């Protein structure tokens, strides 16, 4: 009896808590409503920045939005014109920009991590709830719990770093900070509120894990993870609005005067592409970090049981990470298109001008990431008997990957000295220039991704023999699909050389569609075909080479490095502007650093992050001495997300 009432009470509390969270979640929306969520300019009196408006009853001056071209009442002060003085740019014997760079980058790494891990947690917990198999369900649940535990320490570090960022910003760039905060005041208030809501949800989510283990309460717990992630994502989007504003300002006039419409300030043209790109990037990054954690635990494991658990965990994390890595280039492509649409100049600075070499580094890294992912899958085939049937194909795949990799990283145009320009007879090399154009590059990266899909399909069926009646036809179809996909991608790449540019740019869409066809049709068909397939041998988790684990660490390090690099590119494309074309950077550090300096700083940030996160892992391992309930070695443990 007592247990029932207790459970009922739990239920009521859970509902109350859930209601509170939903309310907290909606609160900022209500708060921002009077500030004008629509296109109509808000009445100045109701916004928080009303205080800034002149008090006397002079007719309100009107001005034009730099981006939306709408008229609006001038509410804010113009962007301050800074001078190189202690008032605007205080000196502390060091390059202020570099200090801020380190602080922001560390905050961003931790922020991404604590945003990504709860999403994993949500997915894995949900998998645990819907899985019928009791043992497996417990395993998933434990994994989700492990995830959130790691993120808890990281969460407090994120908050701490956030404080450091604000402090650094305020100290080193007081005028600029003042201007930004005068525009984003309502957004910052919302941000603070949401942050509190996020903390509350996270802590309750974590500490209520055991209490809400069974039945309906478990579902509420899962719902809570959804809310947690919604809040987290909104938080990220608000933070993105600041950087998007700095890059492609809107909602202000040409002098930088705020026009009273907060939605325009948030919803600048690059905001949504950045949102999508960052969300995907965070997930890939989070996958990398968790995979590295699992690799670390695998390598230090004392027993087979532990090894098997952490091998599995590394695989799951890597799998989720790669799932989000595959759409990432497409999101990047969208962002780039929007950049070109916003200011062609900015696009050219990025892709063909001053920052083009950074994109070469990025291209090298993307290629290396896919190579590593493939390598890990091939190493993972060690876990299965029967995989030797496919070993002989790997060398061809390596060949294809390397060739594409080389094409992929051939630059198009680049910064050159006049002598070099003359020696090459133009901006483009007569032969290699042909591989530098988008047509060839799109072909190469799509071939790389298709090959990765092929690796995955081979991995899926490494230890299985399909028994369905139509297996020969299925195999033939898969063969036809992949062959023709390769042919089609390469044909489109060649075709692109013979047609004018405006038609050519359209070719990337069918290319991507071919790759995605392989991904979806191939993987789904393969999974259906493997239903009830004969096992040659079970997956022996833990039976993977040490090299495979280092591949995971390589993936994680590269993700981190790439994130630092892309962030640097995104930020430095503003060149000598604080807010693009609105507020000029007049500090002594307005110049653009050399690539080498950037690369050194990124390396420093990456290594600093990993040193601290290893400490976090170590803290996390203090609590647990025992490995959670694991399937004995050799027992069948399905891989995530419907593979196998």
């Amino acid at each position, binding site marked *: 009896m007592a247990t029932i009432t207790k459970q009922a009470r739990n239920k009521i509390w859970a509902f109350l808590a859930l209601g509170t969270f939903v309310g907290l979640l909606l609160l900022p929306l209500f708060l921002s409503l009077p500030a004008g969520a629509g296109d109509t300019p808000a009445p100045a009196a109701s916004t928080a920045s009303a205080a800034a408006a002149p008090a006397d009853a002079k007719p309100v001056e009107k001005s034009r939005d730099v981006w939306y071209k709408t008229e609006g009442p001038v509410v804010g002060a113009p962007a301050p014109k800074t001078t190189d003085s202690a008032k605007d740019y205080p000196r502390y014997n060091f390059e202020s920009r570099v200090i801020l760079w380190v602080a922001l980058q560390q905050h961003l790494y931790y922020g991404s991590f604590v945003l990504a891990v709860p999403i994993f947690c949500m997915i894995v917990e949900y998998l645990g709830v819907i899985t019928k198999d009791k043992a497996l369900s417990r395993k998933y649940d434990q994994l989700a719990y492990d995830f959130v535990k790691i993120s808890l320490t990281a969460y407090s570090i994120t908050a701490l770093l956030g404080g450091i960022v604000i402090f650094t910003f305020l100290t080193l760039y007081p005028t600029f900070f003042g201007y930004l905060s005068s525009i984003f005041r309502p957004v910052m208030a919302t941000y603070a509120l949401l942050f509190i809501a996020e903390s509350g949800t996270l802590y309750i989510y974590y500490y209520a894990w055991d209490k809400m283990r069974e039945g309906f309460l478990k579902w509420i717990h899962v719902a809570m993870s959804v809310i947690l992630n919604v809040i987290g994502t909104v938080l990220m989007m608000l933070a993105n609005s600041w950087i998007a504003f700095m890059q492609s300002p809107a909602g202000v006039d040409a002098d930088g005067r705020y026009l009273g419409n907060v939605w325009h300030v948030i919803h600048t043209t690059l905001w949504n592409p950045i949102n999508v790109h960052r969300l995907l990037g965070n997930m890939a990054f989070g996958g990398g970090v968790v995979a590295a954690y699992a690799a670390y635990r695998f390598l230090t494991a004392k027993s087979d049981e532990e090894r098997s658990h952490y091998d599995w965990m590394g695989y799951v994390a890597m799998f989720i990470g790669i799932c989000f890595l595959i759409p990432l280039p497409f999101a990047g492509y969208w962002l780039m298109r929007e950049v070109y649409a916003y200011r*062609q100049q900015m696009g050219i600075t990025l892709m063909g001008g001053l920052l083009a070499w950074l994109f070469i*580094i990025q291209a090298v890294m993307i290629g290396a990431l896919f190579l590593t992912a493939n390598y890990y899958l091939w190493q993972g085939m060690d876990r299965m008997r029967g995989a030797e049937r496919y070993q002989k194909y790997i060398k061809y795949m390596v060949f294809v990957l390397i060739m594409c990799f080389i094409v992929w990283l051939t630059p198009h145009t*680049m910064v050159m000295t006049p002598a070099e*320009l003359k020696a090459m007879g133009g901006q483009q090399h007569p032969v290699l220039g042909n591989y530098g154009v988008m047509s060839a590059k799109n072909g190469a990266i799509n071939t790389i991704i298709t090959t990765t899909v092929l690796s995955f399909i081979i991995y899926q069926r490494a230890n299985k023999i399909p028994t369905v009646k139509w297996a020969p036809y299925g195999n033939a179809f898969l063969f036809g699909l992949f062959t023709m996909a390769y042919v089609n991608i390469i044909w489109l790449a060649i075709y692109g050389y013979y047609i004018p540019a405006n038609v050519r740019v359209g070719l990337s869409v069918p290319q991507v569609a071919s790759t995605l066809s392989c991904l979806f049709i191939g993987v789904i068909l393969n999974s259906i075909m493997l239903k009830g397939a004969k096992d040659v041998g079970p997956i022996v988790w833990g039976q993977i080479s040490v090299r495979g684990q280092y591949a995971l*660490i390589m993936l994680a390090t590269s993700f981190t490095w790439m994130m630092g690099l892309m962030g640097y590119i995104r930020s430095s494309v503003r060149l000598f502007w604080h807010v693009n*074309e609105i507020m000029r950077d007049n500090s002594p550090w307005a110049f653009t650093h050399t690539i*080498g300096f950037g690369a050194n700083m990124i*390396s420093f940030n*990456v290594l600093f992050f990993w040193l601290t996160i290893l400490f976090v892992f170590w803290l996390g391992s203090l609590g647990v001495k025992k490995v959670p309930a694991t399937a004995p070695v050799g027992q069948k443990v399905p891989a995530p997300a419907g593979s196998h």
Partner: protein
Amino acid sequence: MFTGKVLGGVTAAIIFGAIGTIFYFLPESGAAQLMRKAFHLGWPGGLVIVILMLYFQFGRKNDPRQGELVFKSVIGLLGYSMLFIAIANYAMNFNDESPGVPGEPRFLPVSLVMFTVACFTMAMYFKGVRVLLQIGGFMFFVAACLAGFGNWLPQVKADPPPAEEKTADVRQMSVQERADLGEKIIFGAVGASGTQGAIGKGQCPLCHGFQKGFLSERAPNLFGIPTRALERLKDPRYSQADPSKRDTVQKEACPGCGTAQTAAEYIAESHACPNCYVVAGFGVKGSNDRESPMPASHKPPIALTELRRTHRR
């Protein structure tokens, strides 16, 4: 004969010999400076390790693991020295942005390689933290490769354009001087107009070709513009008689400016108001040639100053 002790002794002798040689013969060389700096930064920790080593050597005569402990201290000291030489390298070369010409290499990634070596060396002897050191070493290695690659590429440091430019009054200039100034603004140097890809502060050649047959996909080729401008003026879409009839997002360069009457005015108008007339096919995609992708030359991002715009209004 070649016992571990002998080998270790020989190695130590070689290392100390090399250091001694550097300090004796090349006291002002980079390596000597680096070691001095490293010693300056890291001597307290090093002292602790040396004391530990001496303690193991003389204070633990009866400990069966005495030899091992002393040896580990030596290895630790070695790793520690490398760590601080690497840190010293960072500290000394941090602001080095030299272009990487021969004889002036950019040294920072070397630090990362040293970290890597130190980590892996230590990992060989310190079993307890072996995995951690190996992972760390591996990460340092990956970072070193990437940073090394970044430093190997051509290095360009871009200074911001000066906020205010002082140029002589164009109205006082001869025709030749004006033409030279224009060439400098557009192509970066006098005489550069014939080179594909030459570009100056005005950045026009990013999109426009200036010679017959030059690549000019993004914007019209400007070769022969003085004569073609007159044809443009007659285009009905230009609407020379009445700017308000223009089907463009901006109808006039400034309120009441009207339209151009001469080729020079047409070119001037195109600079100040690219939207006033868009050559068919070169408008912003989807705008049906009502809007030009070109920025006005006197506004950011190009922002030529008043004197820099050599045309007359």
